[in-house]
């Protein structure tokens, strides 16, 4: 009978960007079961609806997370606009799409750097984050902030991007593509990287469906589901197909995210080519009354916003169900049967954003 030991992992660990705790039940270097414990960053943001009115809550909703901050603000504003039946101008929809795709680009580059750090390849980590700095400079020139933009509002967006800035962004995407290709070739072809990623943490298509995985985690196992094909914001006018891989291991998830980086650059170039002129904001009157569910595609997967309003200045309820919350059971399943040295990599392949999970 093998002896079982319990090793605590986290909440402080050099490889984790945010605190999460797992109790790993081990039998001689192989993990048998994992028991999660979350709640280290719980700030109670959903209870703030009682104190901030529905227009001030945009700023709270943006600060739920630092990496996916623009899409949180956008999802909240889209829900309130649907409740109040407000149609925002076309130019605002295209501007929101451009900023969302730039957010996806910087989030995936951040993830690539953290994965390289997890298996010890520090110079690749530094080069990925060096490329990410160019995207953050675009954000600062257009919106004024590097991480928290404060540029989306109920009824449209608050700042416009001028014609020269748009041409500059389009030209930057071309040079950026070559630089990113050098780094991603190392991820996909290098022998030492492949030996850490291929065959680690396999999730079959049936398991991914039964456990409710979302985002790149599900698309790497063959499930083709991407909320952007539903056509919110300006996505209805852009050609793209969801990127799917079949093998279901960590290498497939890296392939899906790298494919999404190049797809984002292509979507930004298409948006800039067909951008219409016009207003960027509509004035809103009155208070919202009703309820609505909005589904968006964040870099990590499918996110759901539920807003319930009762006709006064303060909302009744705002609920955010983030993709990491749905991917945690899939993580616990892939951890069964892996070696102890693979645990940091498997935790990073779900792209954990714990401050989103426990608003």
């Amino acid at each position: 009978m093998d002896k079982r030991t319990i090793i605590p992992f986290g909440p402080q660990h050099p490889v984790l960007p945010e605190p999460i705790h797992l109790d790993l039940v081990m039998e001689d270097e192989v993990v048998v079961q994992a028991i999660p414990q979350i709640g280290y960053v719980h700030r109670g943001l959903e209870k703030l609806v009682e104190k901030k009115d529905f227009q001030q809550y945009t700023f709270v909703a943006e600060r739920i997370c630092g990496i996916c901050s623009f899409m949180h603000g956008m999802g909240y504003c889209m829900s309130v606009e649907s409740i109040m039946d407000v149609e925002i101008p076309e130019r605002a929809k295209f501007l929101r799409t451009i900023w969302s795709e730039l957010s996806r680009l910087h989030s995936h580059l951040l993830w690539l750097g953290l994965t390289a750090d997890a298996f010890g390849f520090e110079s690749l980590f530094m080069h990925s984050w060096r490329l990410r700095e160019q995207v953050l400079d675009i954000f600062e020139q257009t919106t004024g902030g590097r991480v928290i933009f404060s540029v989306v509002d109920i009824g449209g967006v608050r700042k416009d991007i001028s014609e020269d800035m748009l041409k500059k962004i389009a030209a930057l995407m071309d040079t950026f593509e070559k630089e990113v290709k050098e780094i991603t070739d190392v991820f996909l072809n290098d022998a030492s990287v492949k030996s850490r990623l291929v065959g680690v943490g396999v999730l079959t298509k049936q398991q991914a469906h039964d456990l409710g995985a979302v985002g790149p985690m599900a698309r790497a196992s063959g499930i083709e589901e991407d909320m952007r094909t539903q056509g919110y914001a300006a996505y209805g006018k852009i050609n793209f197909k969801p990127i799917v891989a079949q093998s279901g291991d960590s290498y497939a998830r890296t392939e899906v995210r790298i494919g999404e980086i190049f797809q984002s650059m292509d979507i930004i170039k298409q948006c800039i080519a067909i951008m219409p002129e016009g207003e960027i904001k509509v004035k809103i009157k009155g208070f919202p009354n009703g309820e609505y569910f909005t589904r968006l595609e964040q870099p990590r997967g499918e996110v759901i916003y539920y807003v319930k309003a009762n006709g006064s200045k303060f909302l009744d309820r705002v609920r955010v169900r983030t993709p990491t919350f749905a991917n945690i059971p899939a993580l616990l399943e892939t951890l069964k049967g892996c070696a102890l040295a693979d645990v940091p990599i498997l935790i990073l392949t779900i792209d954990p954003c714990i401050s989103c999970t426990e608003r």
Partner: protein
Amino acid sequence: MAEQTIGKISPNELLSETLRLKNDGYRLVAISCTNKEGIELTYSFDKEYDFINLRLNIDYDTTIESVSLIYPYAFLYENEITELFGVKITNISVDFDSTLYRIGVKTPFNEPKEEK
């Protein structure tokens, strides 16, 4: 606007409806809860972009069965609802017993002396 079907059911029908949706191939997307003159629970399901919600309206003392026998990953949602709202849910597959978030106040969204 757009397609948002919300069907009202009673607590006894919850398990049978959930089993029927699971056999149809739907996945559980979220369980939401609102506290306004009683507890209002909403179970959301999705299959290939088709979005269905089931709504239950109960008062503070009703106990309901957990759906984690059918959808094993529902335990996270149900633990959060018992901790923040104080709704009584029995037979959750992995029960944290109100230590998921470990907050100082007992059920912050459902304080006993406040009225809405």
